[in-house]
């Protein structure tokens, strides 16, 4: 049976990730072109910065959490 509480947590996660990953102030470029997992080129639609790094890769790690077995 659908656990409404679980699903709401999934929605909260989607809402948070949409903002934290894709919105907000971007000071390191909009698109990152990655070669061999090293982020090289920042293609910014507005501004470019040379002294800011970004993370290599985004990976969805499973957060151990008893009520939410689903993966995004």
């Amino acid at each position, binding site marked *: 049976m659908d656990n409404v509480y679980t699903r709401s947590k999934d*929605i909260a996660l*989607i809402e948070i990730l949409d903002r934290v*990953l894709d919105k907000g102030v971007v000071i390191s470029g909009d698109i*990152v*072109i*990655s*070669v061999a997992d090293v*982020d090289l080129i920042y293609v910014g639609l507005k501004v470019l910065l040379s002294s800011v790094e970004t993370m290599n890769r985004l990976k969805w790690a499973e957060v151990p959490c008893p009520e939410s077995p689903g993966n995004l």
Partner: protein
Amino acid sequence: MDRIIETDDPRVFIEEMEKLNVPGSKRINADTKNVEKGLVKLVLALVELIRGLIEKQAIKRIESGSLSDEEIERIGETLMKLENKMQELKEIFQLKDEDLSLNLGPLRDLI
């Protein structure tokens, strides 16, 4: 006010939102084996973009009544051949429609 998240049907929203791009999917993988396929994708995506624009233009002119029957037949035949060719190319390079969609952001409505 503490943060509220309310919906009467969470499952339906999760389904819909997962259909859209996964957040953070703006990284383009340019590893060697992907580069060629990436270039083909880009070229075909552009061709598809142009094909769509031409088709839309043709439809607008048909609607405004400014094309003769022969002109409609000719442009229809050309667009039909172009669409078939695109279909062939997609099959050869094993690309799906979604692979060829360009994220145009605010320009989306042009298509």
